[in-house]
Every structure is written in C-alpha cells, then in structure tokens.
C-alpha cells in the first residue's frame, strides 16, 4: 500500500487528502503532519466578526480524519527531508518513510521590522490562535491601527468596523491594495472608506511602536503619531520554505513545481502558498498565495500522487473582497503594462471596470462597484471564465473597448460556456467531502 505523507493541513493539504480519498477510497496510507489542526484561514474574518463560532472554522475533526483513514501527527513540525532514503524527519527526532511526499506548509505573516513590533497588543491576523487573541481582545470602540492595506488587511476591515472599532489603516505604498487594483480603483476605495469613517494613511512608513499610558503609540517617518489600543500587522506573508533548504529541492520565491505540482525531486510534490507553479495567463512560474490556487494545487498534486497523469494549465491569480458593501475583485494580469486596457469609471456611483486585452484575448480584469449594484457585481464569475479559457473575443473587442461593462453578451456569444465544459481540473464529477466513500 502506497504511503502518502502530507505536511500541512491548510487548504492545499486538506484538498489533497479529500482528493486522494475520492480517487482511492481508502486504498493507501495517508499520514498528515501538521503543527495545527485543520482549519480554514479563509473564514477567520467571519469568526472575528462573531458571525460564526470557533467550531465553524475547522475543516476536519479528528473523527472525520479517522473516517477518511488519515493517520495524524498534529502538533508536530517537519524538520528535514532525506530524499535519498525517502524519509521525513520530524522535530524532536521522529522519522516517517514515504512513497510520496506533499509539502503544503503554507506561509507566515511578516511584521513591519520596527522597534515594538513584538510588544503587547501588536498582532498578526493569520493563524487561528492569532485570530482567537484578536477576537477575544477587541473591545467596542477600541482604536485599531491596521498596518498594511493589502488583501489580508481588507478581509478583516468589515469585521473590525462591525465590532465597533475605530479604524486607521496605514499603507507604506502610495495607494491601498497595491497588488490588487490600479490607481483608479484604489482612489475609489479610499474615498469609499473615508466617507464611512475609516481613516486611511497612504505613503506612510511606520518607524516604531511605543507604549503610552496602557495604549500603543505609533511613530512614523512621516506624519503625526497615532494612538491605538490594538495594532494589527498585515504587512505581507512569506512562504515557509526555510526548513526545506537542505533537501535539494529547487527553490525560487517558493518551491518550484511543474504542471503536475512535482518538484525537481522524484515523489516530492508541493502545493499552495509555498509552491511556485505555472501561471495560466503568463505561462511563467509564480507564487499565488491565494485560496483557489491552494485548492487547485492540492487536487492536482493528489491526483498525481495517486498515480494518475494529470496536468493543469496553470493557476489564475484572482482576489475578491468587499469592504463595507463595496465589491472589489481582480483577475489575472490586471496590471499588465503591455496589454490594451479598456476601462470605464463612474466615480460617484461608484463603479469601475477594466479589461486588459492581448490580441483577442482578455488576460486580466478589475471590477469594482457596490455590492448592492447588481450591474457591477453580476459578472465576476464570467470575467474569470474569460481569463481562464482565453476564449477568442476578437469580434467583441471594439464593442468592449467602448462598453467594458457589457461582458455578459460577449461571454455568451464567444461560446465560453461550451469551452468551460471541457476545461475542468480533474475531469471527474465532484464529490462533497462529507460523502466520500471509504471501503472498509
């Protein structure tokens, strides 16, 4: 019986487990090594908002894992890989032999490297335990400073506002969401937030966090000091690759994987935030530290670990977040400087659409509008479909140049749905994880 060792119980690891069991119905050994119990990082903001309880956060209980015939080493860390002997070495000395190894150890949050960053009431919001700390410690009308105005920061703004926090968001770069929307989009979002009482300070560099009368005093290289009761650091993430460096695995920004999620070493796969795999739009390798890529990688890696020969065309960079009922999403090469960009903006509604074309193909898109505004938010999935299929829109290009909001008819007329029916991931019907049949 083949033995699959999976390191990491996040989205990539969990999807690998369910996919393996969909395919082999229990006919292999799976050992899960993970520092933390399996939970979904994606739903932590809803836990912070107190719209769900802690039990809702977990993806698999220990009894569920047992049903799936998964042996667990929860609370343990992988230390080293001996690929010649096909062994994983654990911290504290244990060893596990593997036939296939999946590295899905995710990424860790970075804190701005300033004095006081490790002090009391300065937290990242990344792991469940950090989420527990912030959720429990947040008082109504607390003054909260969020350092960083990227995707992670924006996923928790609603929760913080709804819990009655008084918010200031600080960003080093000249605009908010610098890796998700362009200048036009960022300007709309900044205005939207300002109108709703969220203070945003861009182009502002934090220099120190001091203590003052039981509160935190934030000092900046430019701009006035800021007093806060709680500081949340959302200043980027970094793949957890350090421990793999001695293994001979090829690393760039992340662990390099091919279109089967294989590393350069036989029988070692990588998936999710830690993996640097093909990008469907550019064809180049990139780290896409997003939930959909972790899911995709996890499923592809598992299919190949199970002995299938399953390639994927690449992962698609995409993000969606709403802040106080303003919807913001971007796809693919939304910042491609060489693409033709067709855009339309209604600053006061607000509504914004940008389509990026290379030849007859949409390679990226930005969409922004009120959540309640059906016109703006209806087409999110279709934009994904257009970028994912790369369907030929030559006949529609002129029309979309002038009407970038009119995506739906172009999507329909280009036969995108027909292409999608054959462009699936594993080419097999989905099975809800709760209904996976395990042979006894």
């Amino acid at each position, binding site marked *: 019986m083949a033995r699959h060792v999976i390191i990491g119980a996040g*989205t990539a690891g969990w*999807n690998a487990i369910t996919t393996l069991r969909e395919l082999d119905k229990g006919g292999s050994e799976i050992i899960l090594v993970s520092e933390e119990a399996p939970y*979904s990082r*994606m*739903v932590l*903001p*809803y836990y912070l908002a107190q*719209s*769900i309880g802690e039990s*809702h956060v977990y*993806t698999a209980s220990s009894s569920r894992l047992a049903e799936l015939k998964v042996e667990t080493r929860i609370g343990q860390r992988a230390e080293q890989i001996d690929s010649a002997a096909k062994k994983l070495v654990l911290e504290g000395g244990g060893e596990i032999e593997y036939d296939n190894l999946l590295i899905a150890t995710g990424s860790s949050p970075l804190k701005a490297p300033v004095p006081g960053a490790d002090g009391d009431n300065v937290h990242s919001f990344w792991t469940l335990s950090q989420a527990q700390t912030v959720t429990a410690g947040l008082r109504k009308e607390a003054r909260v400073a969020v350092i960083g105005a990227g995707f992670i920061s924006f996923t928790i703004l609603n929760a913080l506002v709804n819990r009655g926090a008084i918010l200031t968001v600080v960003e080093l770069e000249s605009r908010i969401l610098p890796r998700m929307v362009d200048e036009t989009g960022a300007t709309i979002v900044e205005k939207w937030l300002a109108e709703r009482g969220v203070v945003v300070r861009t182009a502002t560099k934090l220099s120190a966090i001091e203590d003052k009368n039981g509160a935190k005093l934030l000092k900046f290289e430019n701009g006035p000091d800021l007093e806060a009761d709680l500081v949340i650091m959302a200043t980027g993430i970094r793949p957890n690759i350090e421990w793999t460096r001695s293994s001979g695995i090829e690393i760039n920004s992340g662990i390099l994987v091919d279109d089967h999620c294989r590393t350069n070493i036989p029988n070692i796969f990588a998936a999710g935030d830690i993996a640097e795999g093909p990008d469907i739009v550019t064809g180049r390798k990139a780290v896409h530290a997003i*939930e*959909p890529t972790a*899911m995709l990688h996890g*499923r592809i890696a598992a299919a190949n670990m199970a002995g299938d020969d399953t390639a994927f065309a690449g992962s698609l960079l*995409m*993000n*969606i977040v*709403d802040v106080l*009922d303003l919807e913001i999403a971007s*796809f693919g090469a939304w910042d491609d400087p060489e693409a033709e960009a067709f855009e339309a903006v209604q600053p006061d509604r607000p509504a914004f659409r940008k389509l990026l074309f290379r030849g007859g193909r949409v390679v990226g898109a930005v969409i922004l509008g009120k*959540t309640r505004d*059906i016109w703006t*938010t*209806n*087409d*999110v*999935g*279709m*934009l*994904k*479909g257009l970028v994912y*299929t790369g369907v030929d829109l030559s*006949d*529609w290009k*002129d*029309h979309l140049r002038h009407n970038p909001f*009119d995506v*739906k*008819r172009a999507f*329909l*007329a*280009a*036969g*995108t*749905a*027909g292409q*999608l*029916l054959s462009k*699936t*991931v*594993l*080419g*097999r*019907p*989905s099975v*809800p*994880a*709760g*209904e996976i049949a395990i042979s006894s």
Partner: protein
Amino acid sequence: MKVLKIIPDRCTGCMRCDLACSYEQTGTFQPSKSVIRISSFEGHTSYAPYTCLQCDEAWCLTACPVEAIGISPVGAKVVADDICVGCKLCTIACPYGTMFYDIDTHKAVKCDLCGGKPACVEVCPTEAIVYEDAEQADWVGPFAAERTKAPAGPLAGVS
C-alpha cells in the same frame, strides 16, 4: 440526469422565469435576485435565459472552504445557508458566472433546480426552458453568436 435545457429561439423575453425564480428563491418578485437571467440581443428583439449548468466537476463545490455546497437528490449543486459564511470564493471560482450573492442574507445563492420542480420551467409560456434528461451543453452560445457577429465593421447587432 435531468437538466434545464434552454431553447433560446423560443424565448420571447417575457421575464416570467426571472420573476418565478426570484419568488421561489427569495420570496420576492425581483429579477435582480433571480438565478436565471435573461439577456437581450439585437436591440431587444431577441432574448435568451442563462443559468447554472450544474456542471459535473463543480467549481463552486470544490472552492467552498467550509463545505457549504452539496449535491441534492436531483443532482443540483446546492448551498446550505447555515454553513455558508458569505466569503464569495464560489462567486469567483465559478467561471460560468452563475453563483450569486444575496446582500440581504450575506449568503451565496445559486440554481438548485427547485428540488426537481423548476419554477422557471413551470411558468415559461413557450417552453423555451424545459427540464429533461440531456447532456450538459452550451445552450445559449450559438444563438448569441448568430445574433451579435456583424459581417464587417462595427457590431451592428449589438445594442
């Protein structure tokens, strides 16, 4: 399995499917809350409804981080409201554009085939939507292409 087969040539654009769908799904007659949506072509002289194909390898189902999307006895992919947290991952995962989000309930919404008695089919006066055994197909694509491809120059058919 039985699917919603759409024969757009028969559609008159009366929007009864939109109304019935929104009423069935949300209790209000509000086309903006329908999960079947009519598009118009050729200056509002031809129309076609479009909705979830219930694709086999369902993007929404695999994308959901909390397993809120399951498969009903009639084969529809359905959202469990008590499990959905409203994170919208399914709305960007579904490349067909047939996952919706209800701002009033903060949940994802999609076609559930009304448990096997689709309201859109029942109210369609011209049998432009039928519920029968068929392979999934791009029902609307060829119809839309015929009505929007101009022979040359600007897109004459596009309103």
